[in-house]
């Protein structure tokens, strides 16, 4: 009887072991699949960076950086006006977008009391981040291009600032919320009014996070193309009036890429390299100059993720 039982148990054990090895195998396979997913995402990134550097590096020289484009198809001149235009338009958009975004973020975290109103603001702010940029370009076109009567730099700047604001609002709110309450309470205990506490204590402690958010928003709008087609049109001349078309790097890349000349294509790659360098140095330089001394990957990664949500959540 007991031997029978033993035999039975052995069989069950064996079956379980077989089963278990299969389960472990499934586990290994799935792990492999998820690793493959990671690799599948990293390959395009590597390929993009590699191609931009390989094809773009040759095009860049002093003339390329400072001169307007030469005759079409000849490959002379450069993308000077586009660089200038991008810098101008991003600066203008930031002038509009940063104060509004930061103040709205402060409101949401410090003054909104989590009421119904701030809930709706937050909700629609999130929805705004998901709006296609071309739709925002239409707004710029209707509100500023049609009323002024010509494509102009302000229309582009306003459109870009509309893209920028929700990102800045979201990051500002989140970072300010991370400031420990004890710091605010220290201010209250000294009898400092709330607005002063917010501006000089809370915002100051959250400076790094807010700045990172702003830089990320800037690097995002610097690469926007779609709204610019509808608002600043693009030109091969340097900026000369607030009432005429302006050029910008993303627009120039688009125009160059769709021309049938190899020289234009290599110019396009060069402009793409400059755009990437602009965007990357902006964030890296700021991170090292103003932000934490230590390179805190996790924090940057969190803010980047916010930006990736694009921006969404």
């Amino acid at each position: 009887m007991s031997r029978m039982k033993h035999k039975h148990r052995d069989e069950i054990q064996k079956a379980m072991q077989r089963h278990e090895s299969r389960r472990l195998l499934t586990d290994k396979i799935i792990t492999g699949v998820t690793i493959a997913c990671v690799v599948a995402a990293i390959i395009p990134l590597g390929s993009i960076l590699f191609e931009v550097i390989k094809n773009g590096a040759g095009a860049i020289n002093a003339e390329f950086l400072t001169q307007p484009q030469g005759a079409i198809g000849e490959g002379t001149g450069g993308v000077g006006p586009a660089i200038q235009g991008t810098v101008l338009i991003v600066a203008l958009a930031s002038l509009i977008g940063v104060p509004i975004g930061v103040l709205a973020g402060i409101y949401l975290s410090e003054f909104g009391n989590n009421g119904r109103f701030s809930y709706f603001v937050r909700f629609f702010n999130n929805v705004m981040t998901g709006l296609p940029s071309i739709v925002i370009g239409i707004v710029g076109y209707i509100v500023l291009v049609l009323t002024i009567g010509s494509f102009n730099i302000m229309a582009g700047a306003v459109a870009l600032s509309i893209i920028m604001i929700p990102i800045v609002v979201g990051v500002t709110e989140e970072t300010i919320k991370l400031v420990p309450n004890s710091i605010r309470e220290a201010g209250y205990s000294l009898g400092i009014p709330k607005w002063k506490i917010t501006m000089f204590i809370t915002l100051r402690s959250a400076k790094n996070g807010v700045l990172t958010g702003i830089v990320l928003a800037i690097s995002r709008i610097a690469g926007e193309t779609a709204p610019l087609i509808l608002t600043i049109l693009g030109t091969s001349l340097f900026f000369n009036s607030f009432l005429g078309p302006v050029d910008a790097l993303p627009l120039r890349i688009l125009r160059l890429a769709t021309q049938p000349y190899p020289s234009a294509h290599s110019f396009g790659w060069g402009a793409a390299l400059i755009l990437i360098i602009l965007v990357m140095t902006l964030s890296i330089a700021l991170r090292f100059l103003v932000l934490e001394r230590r390179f805190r990957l996790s924090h940057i990664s969190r803010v980047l993720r916010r930006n990736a949500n694009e921006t969404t959540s």
Partner: protein
Amino acid sequence: MLALVAFSVADGSAEAFSIEGLKFFGKTDWNPVEGRESYGALPYVIGTLVSSGIAMVIGVPISLGIAIFISEIASKRIGTPIAFVVEILAAVPSIIYGLWALFVFRNISRDFIERPLYEAFGGAIPFFAKTPFGLDVFTAGIVLGIMIIPIISSISREIIKAVPRSQREAAYSLGATRWETVRSVVIPYAKSGLLGASILGLGRAMGETIVVMMIIGNTTGLAAIPTTLFSSSQTLSSVIANEFNEAATTFHSSALIALGGILFLLTIAINIGAQVLVSRMVKTNPGARE
């Protein structure tokens, strides 16, 4: 601000709707020649849905795989840098994706993905029955799929993080393997949130303009309805970007703005839905984040 957007779009598209009426949604012709103008939105709506549908098929599984790898499988030391790299994908401007897609990926796609598919299935399945050219909905869909990976994977990660630890521990204590825990505990628990994350990605794919405009082939009218995976097409956003500067009449530009209005309504609806799903998931489990 949202109201401003809605107002501008409504204002700008008024002319198109007053002339075309509701037929605008169902018509397939697109003729900008003065005097014979006629515009219909249907082909672009279909083009948008098909290209972002392909993007979802490619982007969602990869993103979920990444999210599961980072949050459940990898150690923190490996996971954080990977998350960082994946998020850099989101920082690359879309115009650079476009450039890469037009000059590099298009050839890869045509020679190594589309041609084999065409040769293998072209005779049997009508979806594949067209000589691949590279500039088509399929390539556009793949690139869009790559572009939405960072969004979906990062939100999915947040969602997965919101699954309470105790749930996982319960599964592990029963002797479940990692995959069994993920499949039977984490995914069911996070289902609605993951759905929301994917829908946000869908919204993003639908609104993407420049990349699509550079590689989808830009056909108009009836020809923009993709009959095979390798047909050229056009989406709501790319047709606006393509034709806006060439619109000679106010009717034409107003028709384009009306397309923008459709896109606006579609993405707003998608975003609101997804936002509700995601925030409910994260809000109901506030203590779950570590």
